[in-house]
């Protein structure tokens, strides 16, 4: 159970924290508000999952980096705003299907949370689809988006890295969707989101997944630096009560 919780929550937590870095410096006011609100949502969703098995703060601030089950792409620096948007849409398409599967979970704690979370994820998806669609209306926008995907062609799919334990939970009553179905639904969706882009084939994507090891405990420099930052205040005075 713990592993499954981390599989869901750690992506939300890390991506939410990364999104926060845009607060106050977003490209325009409405977008700044939107991304900051979405970041807050993601971190809240992480917290809702952690609370099933304990105190959320313990999992956020007291875990070793290698115990975080987040995907490689979520821990990377923001680079630029287009990357932030593209990454988030990839993640939200992936997460929406995953949370959707929990709506039929035999576990009440997961199922009830999914019912709440999916309402908010609807807003997120809508937001990222609209803004990227608008950007792609002009040739220049299409080019910028395409260049970004080119640069992170396989990294963007690293959300599908799994360890054996998670793979075993896929398709059970607790998490009733097969890994294959999850991927196929996602892949169809992402092709609709970026109709002008030619993605690598499913086989190529799956073949390249093995090079990403973040969910399996091998963290990148980006994560370690980031971890230093978000645990910095906690480490100053671990026993402080906030």
């Amino acid at each position, binding site marked *: 159970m713990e592993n499954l919780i981390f599989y869901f929550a750690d992506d939300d937590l890390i991506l939410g924290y990364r999104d926060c870095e845009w607060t106050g410096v977003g490209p325009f006011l*409405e977008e700044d508000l939107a991304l900051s609100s979405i970041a807050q*949502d993601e*971190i809240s969703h992480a917290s809702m999952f952690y609370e099933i098995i304990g105190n959320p703060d313990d999992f956020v601030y007291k875990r070793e980096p290698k115990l975080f089950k987040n995907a490689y792409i979520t821990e990377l620096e923001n680079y630029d705003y287009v990357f932030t948007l593209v990454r988030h849409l990839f993640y939200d398409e992936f997460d929406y299907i995953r949370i959707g599967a929990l709506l039929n979970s035999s576990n009440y704690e997961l199922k009830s949370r999914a019912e*709440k979370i999916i309402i908010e994820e609807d807003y997120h998806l809508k937001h990222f689809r609209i803004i990227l669609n608008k950007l792609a209306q002009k040739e220049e926008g299409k080019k910028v988006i395409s260049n970004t995907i080119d640069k992170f062609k396989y990294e963007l799919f690293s959300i599908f890295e799994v360890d054996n334990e998670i793979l075993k939970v896929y398709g059970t009553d607790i998490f009733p969707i097969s890994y294959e179905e999850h991927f196929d639904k996602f892949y169809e969706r992402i092709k609709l989101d970026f109709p002008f882009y030619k993605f690598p084939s499913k086989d190529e994507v799956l073949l390249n997944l093995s090079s990403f090891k973040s969910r399996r405990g091998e963290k990148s420099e980006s994560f370690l630096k980031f971890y230093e930052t978000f645990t910095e205040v906690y480490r100053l005075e671990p026993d402080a009560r906030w």
Partner: protein
Amino acid sequence: MQGGNLKERILEKISRIKDPEIPTISILDLGIIHDIKVLENKVIVEIKKTYTNCIALDLIKLSIENDLKDMNINDFEVVWVYSPPWRSSDITPRGKIALKEAGICPPDEETCPYCNSKNVVLKSEFGPTRCRMIYYCNNCKNPFEKFR
């Protein structure tokens, strides 16, 4: 513990708690009180989250806990319930009037809370708090907020 009567008394007491960010609306009219269970030796108050990241929620929970202590109830739990999820349609008719009093357009309307004009336009789906969107009134030229 006394059954029915105590439940009513608790409901009456906690119904007076207002949303800390919209002081005209009570948590009862906001529709977030799910159930009050009076068990043999414990009271359980079940409440719902409007939006999961709302920072007012912890304060609301604390206010309920303080009310229960005021009533000399020592064994209690205030717990979040996620299913069925809160929807903006859970806001009572009285709650909608309270929102308007605070200058916020209720969720199922698209009317300017200042001049009642329907000549309004959505400016941003995301607002100063998670539960509000930003609109603009073309008639009285005021920006206003609408409950999501």
